[in-house]
């Protein structure tokens, strides 16, 4: 029961994210989700991966203006999460394979989770 709630969170840096995700993908991990939290130092992005019910979380903390590598090249299904982060937070991604250009969620104000932008 207890280990169920144990959350494995591995911090990563923006530069090693891509290779790490790539490794995980080759290992047979699938992307569960990616989620962004607005924290004072910028964005905290958690990528979750799963392999046979084992969950692995990568936590990436970046300053707001930093552009990070899109992982859609590795797992295409990440386009949903990346577009979401782009629309709601204003996280910048490089080389997205399917970029809705801010029209994934049409919101009345741009990047509502990060009103400064």
């Amino acid at each position, binding site marked *: 029961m207890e280990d169920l709630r144990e959350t494995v969170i591995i911090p990563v840096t923006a530069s090693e994210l891509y290779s790490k995700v790539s490794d995980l993908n080759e290992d047979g991990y699938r992307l569960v989700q990616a989620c962004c939290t607005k924290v004072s130092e910028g964005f905290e992005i958690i990528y979750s991966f799963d392999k046979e019910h084992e969950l692995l979380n990568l936590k990436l903390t970046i300053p707001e203006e930093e552009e990070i590598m899109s992982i859609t090249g590795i797992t295409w299904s990440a386009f949903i999460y990346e577009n979401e982060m782009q629309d709601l937070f204003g996280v910048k991604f490089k080389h997205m394979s399917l970029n*809705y*250009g801010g*029209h994934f969620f*049409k919101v009345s104000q741009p990047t509502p989770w990060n009103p400064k932008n």
Partner: protein
Amino acid sequence: MSTITFLILFPLLSAIALLVLRTDAARGVIVKVSATLIAVASIYLAYQYFGIGEEYFDFANETVNLGMTVIEVLLAIMIIYLGIKYKKYLASVLAAIQTPTMIWFEVKVGHHIHVTNNLYVDRLSIIMVLIIGIIGSIITVYALGYMKDFQHHHKDQPDRRPFFFFIMYLFLGAMCGLVLSNNIVWLYFFWEITTLCSFFLIGYTKTEEAINNSFRALIMNLLGGVGFVIAIVIMGSSLGTLELNQLIMMGMFGVPAVTYVAALLAFAGITKAAQMPFNSWLLGAMVAPTPTSALLHSSTMVKAGVFLIIKLAPLLGWQSLAGIMVMMVGGITFIMASFAAVSQSNAKKVLAYSTVANLGLIVACGGIGTYAAVWAGILLIIFHAITKSLLFLCVGTAEHNIGSRDIEDMDGLFTRMPKLATYMIVGISAMFLAPLGMLVSKWAAMKAFIDNGGVLLVMFIAFGSAATLFYWTKWLGKMVAIMANRENIQSGVNKDENFVLSTLTILTVIVCLIFPLISKTMIVPYLIKAFPYVDPKHMILALSSTNMTIMVIMLFVLIVLPILFFGRTNKKIVPIYLAGANLGDDLTFRGAMEKEVPVSLKNWYMEGYFGEKKMNVIGVIATVVIITGVFAILLGGVL
């Protein structure tokens, strides 16, 4: 008699004049005057022999025969030369077989056979002459404006219009000769001229595709020509006559050799009428400028083939192998070409397949060979000639104005070019809808098939009509789509073209209205003559007079209804439903990623079901099997 001579020779004179006088103005005058004269002459011919009905002319003249032979040799040399020049050796070989055989026959046998009646007029040839004289010449008028635009659009190509018009008029003359000759050798002569003319017309643009296709047409027609020659040889040597009416007479009395002649002539007819193994030449001919297509496929060339078969109809039917061959080939062509048309989006190809299909129907009617079937066949010839030329010319005009001959690009034509769209709608409706022409004949054909054609032909016509319905309505749908916010470009249409199109449209409607009259005064008398063994009192036509009257009334209603009601609505006009994403102009909707996506409406083609290739392969195999089978049996009978 003089009218006949005029009809055959005058086009030739005009042709030479057109070749010599090369200015636009002169050409315009000559074409318009000649066209009028030919049309008037053909009407005069009809008037002249209206009461007489049938007359044969003794026009025995050795010089004419000699002249024909000389021209034939020249033509053969020309074909052989062209064949070698363009490396199409098969054409040369065929010509090299055909003409020497013919000359050998002339010298050896033909010379000794006395031909009493070289020319003749009967009601069928009057009908044909009217079609050639009116529709054919009106097409040449259309060609004036069209070719001007054509050269304007294709600046890179040399202006060979004098030659073009020369060939066209030559063609008209040859066609008149063809339908008026009773001497089979003369018939053959004109037959060969039309072959060659079509070769030049198809190859007009001299692009590689055009040359290939023109040679394909040539080779296939020469193949038919070979059959023709053999038929003449057999006819001359074993029947001892060269007269068509004699041949038919002998056939009715059951002279055995007639079967071979009929089969070979029917074979020639099948090639010329672009029936199934040979349909590809007609499709290839679509590379030519549109007036050519209209001329070749609606009123002349292919009509020569079906004319011959209809003429021979009394010799065909279930009792003769030739008849079975002809009706099966026609039936298969009808169904396969109709199916293939479903998968086409190029308007000219649709028209081409539809032409092939309709010719198939006529051929099948001829093959059945009963008076009811022939009645249907002749009606089909009339309606098809008018309607198809209208449609071909409409497509030509559309092509020059919207820059495409693809049906898909014609959407909303009703908004963009209302007049042209109306012509086309009339033309399309006339091809398959109830009170209009083609359906009447289809109906008659169906009745004839049920009575005499056997189950298979009934199935062919049932399924073929279903496909016909599909592709025509599909096209019709494109025409009628109303796109509120598209610009009207009708004014860009050339005056000559507009005149021709409206005339043809009116003609279509008029012929549909008066077809019972045509049937009564022209077709039925012909049938009584052609089928002397059928008691005229018992000649029950496929359509009872009640039905004809109803059809005419319906058509009248259909003309009146739009005049009274079309577009008269005071309802509020609202935008179309686009799942809540209409951007307001009915032409775009808000798509994914906030893009403005144009509303595009495209038809169905069902490539997987009715793919052109598939249908052609099936059709060609089936018809080749039938034709070779029939000839094998015939040959077996000889040996």
